[in-house]
């Protein structure tokens, strides 16, 4: 390898707060050649962001580099001090952050923000800087850049804002781009467009890149080499293909097998990683993964393994044997995935013609300025004991449907029938009693719990409200629930904030189960969780479903999670259900161009599966305040014709059975060709 562009050596970072000092990084070393792309993956708290941002000294408050060096372009940035770092930041190293909503200054124009690095680092006039900024906006695929220059961040969509952030990072043509979870806050289709853009610009400008992500699918096709981080150290470092083909560290292996994408292939239970990552505020002994590793021996617990090897380095005493090509091969096959509820099951929930319009209000003296059509006429049937997965991008109305089913929102029109009873026609008291039969599970369970109440009180509250049993009986039910979701009974005396993300989600599930509901509406219940913890929750939800005969309405943007858990899938786009049917059929033979595009867009965590026949979706979802006429997808549809603008497509079943699609030109031909 030629002289590295960036060389991080034995980097130690500590974050001190009033109560404790967290040793966020404990000796991280990595090299990056000019033009090379390095992926840094790991779960939350693994130190991946700290590594990437530590390079530029962009540590959170209280953070400091206690040891090690960062050499960039032949210069030590740690020793150089703040002044030197300011020269490098935004100039030879550009950074793109995760959340485009908060990482732009809300009160400055796009133009001023993009031009700013130029004004700081280049000796040019304001006029030249703005002209260059506008050029850069064009380069990142911003339509009408001249107009956008005068816009403010809130006037742009999330994807467009991320383009602005990229333009800002690249306007000085840096040698290195650091991208910290650049697409995590974005929808699948936008995510794809942004990653393509970064790829394209990288090859055009010849930059090196560090791509930090928790998403193995994102790095699989975007980088040359990968560093897997765990608990403040690099566990494994290898070329992307060799890592995905044959991971050596036991943690990497476990991480791969916890991916829902992997389980679907074998139709097995997800393999989970038990326990939690270590608390980095405490001193660490031995291998940091030992406590969760099935192969750990006494040596692992006493001595810390070193990161050894050149091309494929790993820090493990008991690595996966190199000849093993398939990381799943030595995994004990999980339990057979339970047979999906048959289509003949009795309907539990029936939704017909469901619409929800939200008024756009303009203040007390202004007339209403139209409505947002969040849900625009949806029909679906959820059968007893099945998992109905609703999948779609943000703003497609999936959450609104969930809220209406749970009775938190009243439909504008249409009916929701639960076991033959129409919710709308129920009396107030009947409705109240009925609520116990449908419960909600949220994405962020902590936010959904009173922070000052103890867990015991939180779990007991629904029982008290519905008047179930006396206090002793209620406490017995709570204790049983905690057993069922795998939390210690002592949890009743603790407050929600004392639990980790995965434990909180268990609490959320316990709370939803308190009243023994028949239907649980789960709104993105695992979206905020790391892969290994996500697997634990998904398996738990499955087990509980089997034991208690639960029905789930599972709402998610994550196609892989839906595929793993759902028996029936409904795909939503801009308030419409565009396709609905048995999960396997929908995924194997999508009939709607949107579903097809969505499946083609999703990042598969497998670098070998690069395939040119995939046609990812372009464009952006139009506003729900003015949805397109006819078929709402027509503005982005590759097959759209005149009729699509004139008439709303009727629901048909071109393949027979229960696989429904609302499209004038369903993909029947392609399906037949693929089947043949």
């Amino acid at each position, binding site marked *: 390898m030629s002289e590295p562009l960036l060389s991080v050596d034995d980097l130690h970072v500590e974050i001190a707060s009033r109560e404790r000092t967290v040793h966020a990084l404990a000796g991280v070393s990595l090299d990056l050649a000019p033009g090379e792309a390095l992926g840094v993956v790991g779960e939350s708290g693994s130190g991946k962001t700290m590594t990437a941002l530590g390079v530029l000294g962009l540590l959170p408050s209280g953070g400091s580099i206690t040891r090690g060096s960062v050499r960039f372009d032949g210069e030590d940035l740690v020793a150089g001090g703040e002044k030197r770092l300011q020269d490098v930041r935004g*100039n030879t190293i*550009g950074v793109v952050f995760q*959340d485009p909503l908060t*990482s732009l200054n809300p*009160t400055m124009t796009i133009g001023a923000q993009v031009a700013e690095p130029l004004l700081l680092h280049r000796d040019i006039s304001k006029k030249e800087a703005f002209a260059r900024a506008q050029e850069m906006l064009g380069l990142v695929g911003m339509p009408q850049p001249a107009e956008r220059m005068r816009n403010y961040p809130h006037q742009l969509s999330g994807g467009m804002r991320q383009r602005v952030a990229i333009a800002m*990072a690249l306007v000085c043509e840096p040698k290195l781009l650091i991208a910290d979870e650049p697409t995590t806050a974005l929808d699948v289709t936008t995510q794809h467009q942004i990653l393509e853009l970064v790829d394209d610009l990288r090859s055009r400008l010849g930059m090196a890149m560090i791509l930090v992500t928790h998403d193995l699918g994102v790095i699989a096709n975007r980088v040359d080499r990968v560093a897997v981080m765990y608990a403040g150290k690099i566990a494994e470092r290898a070329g992307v293909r060799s890592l995905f083909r044959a991971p050596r560290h036991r943690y990497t292996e476990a991480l791969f097998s916890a991916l829902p994408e992997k389980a679907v292939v074998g139709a097995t239970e997800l393999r989970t990683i038990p326990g939690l990552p270590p608390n980095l505020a405490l001193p660490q002994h031995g291998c940091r993964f030992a406590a969760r590793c099935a192969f750990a021996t006494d040596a692992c617990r006493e001595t810390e393994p070193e990161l050894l090897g050149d091309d494929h380095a790993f820090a493990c005493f008991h690595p996966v044997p190199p000849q093993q090509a398939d990381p799943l091969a030595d995994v004990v096959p999980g339990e057979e995935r339970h047979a999906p509820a048959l289509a003949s099951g009795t309907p539990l929930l029936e939704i017909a013609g469901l619409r929800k319009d939200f008024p756009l209000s303009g203040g007390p003296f202004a007339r209403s300025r139209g409505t947002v059509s969040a849900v625009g006429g949806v029909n679906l049937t959820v059968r007893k004991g099945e998992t109905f997965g609703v999948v779609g991008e943000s703003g497609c109305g999936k959450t609104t449907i969930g809220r209406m089913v749970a009775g938190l929102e009243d439909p504008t029109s249409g009916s929701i029938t639960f076991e033959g009873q129409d919710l709308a026609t129920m009396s107030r008291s009947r409705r109240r009693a009925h609520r116990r039969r449908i419960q909600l599970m949220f994405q962020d369970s902590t936010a959904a719990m009173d922070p000052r109440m103890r867990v015991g009180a939180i779990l007991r509250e629904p029982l008290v409200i519905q008047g179930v049993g006396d206090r002793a009986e209620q406490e017995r039910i709570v204790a049983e629930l905690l057993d069922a979701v795998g939390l210690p009974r002592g949890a009743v005396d603790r407050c929600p904030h004392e639990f980790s993300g995965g434990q909180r989600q268990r609490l959320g599930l316990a709370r939803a189960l308190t009243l023994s509901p028949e239907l649980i509406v789960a709104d993105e219940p695992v979206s905020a969780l790391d892969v290994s913890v996500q697997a634990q929750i998904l398996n738990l939800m499955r087990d509980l479903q089997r034991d208690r005969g639960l029905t789930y309405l599972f709402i998610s943007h994550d196609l892989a999670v839906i595929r793993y858990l759902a028996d029936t899938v409904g795909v939503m786009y801009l308030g419409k259900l565009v396709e609905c049917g048995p999960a396997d059929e929908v995924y194997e033979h999508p009939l709607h161009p949107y579903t097809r595009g969505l499946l083609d867009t999703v990042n598969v965590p497998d670098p070998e599966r690069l395939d040119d026949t995939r046609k990812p979706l372009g464009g952006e979802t139009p506003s729900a305040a003015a949805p397109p006429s006819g078929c709402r997808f027509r503005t982005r549809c590759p097959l759209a014709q005149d009729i699509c603008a004139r008439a709303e497509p009727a629901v048909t079943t071109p393949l027979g059975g229960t696989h429904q699609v609302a499209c004038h030109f369903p993909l029947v031909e392609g399906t037949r060709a693929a089947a043949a």
Partner: protein
Amino acid sequence: MTGFLVKRLLQALVVLFLVTIIVFLLLHSLPGGPARAILGPKGTPQQIAHFNEVQGYDDPLPVQYADYLVRLVHGDLGQSYKLNESVSSLLGQRLPKTLILTVLSTVVAVVVAVPLGLLQAVRRGRPADYILTALAFLAYATPVFFLGLIFIIVFSQAIPLFPAEAPQGTSIGSIFSGFSGMVLPIVTMAFGIIAMFSRYMRSATLDNLTEEYVRTATAKGQSSRRILARHVLRNALIPLVTLLGLYLPTLFSGALVVESMFNYPGMGLLFWNAAQGSDFPVLLGVTLVVGVATVVGSLVTDIVYALLDPRIRSVS
């Protein structure tokens, strides 16, 4: 932006109309009516009837209100019962004096409080922050009359830098020509405002410093000083604008304690004396002015908001 202004102005007019109704009804909700209040318990029924007839209090309420409105539009706020002067001419004398005092002290306060708040936020948890916090609480807790007395003793008597009495002239020119007399009243009044505003500025700046756009700005290679000036300041000023808007009516109602301490007859003293002497036309006039100031205050707040924050601009 123009549409936004027109809409806000129309709303303000509606509110002002409501203010006049409330002010008018207040006058008539007095037990025994204004006549009894003016003439006192010894007033004979004949005197009261005469008073009511002269003042027009025997007409039906809507007629009276219409008269009141017509007079109001012509700038006639009635005649003071006690001072033998029209209310509008009283306000004309007192309001400018009060405004000179209150506006100047507020300007001084903002000019001092904004950098102080920024400094404390940047030095959070360090000695400078603790000392300034302690001083702010001290200034906040000190009664104005006490502070004023200390200033008079120190800066007027021990070290005779400034006179202890405000300029006595009635014209604006004479006030400014004797401006050294305004220093102590302004400083006395500004002290408490500085304490309050600097606390707000400190917390608003701290909130903004933890925002992610600040990290983005750092990643562009800017110095922290430049980030503070170019990025944080504008965003941190937004809460202060709310505070200033809420503060505007106070500017018009005057500062009774400071005015009487430095013998500077402004709105505060006028209101106080009118309240003591049941001088209703004056009371109502002052109330109306403060009501208008309140409405204008929130209008100005909205406009400045829109100037500072483009998100609000585009919603409207």
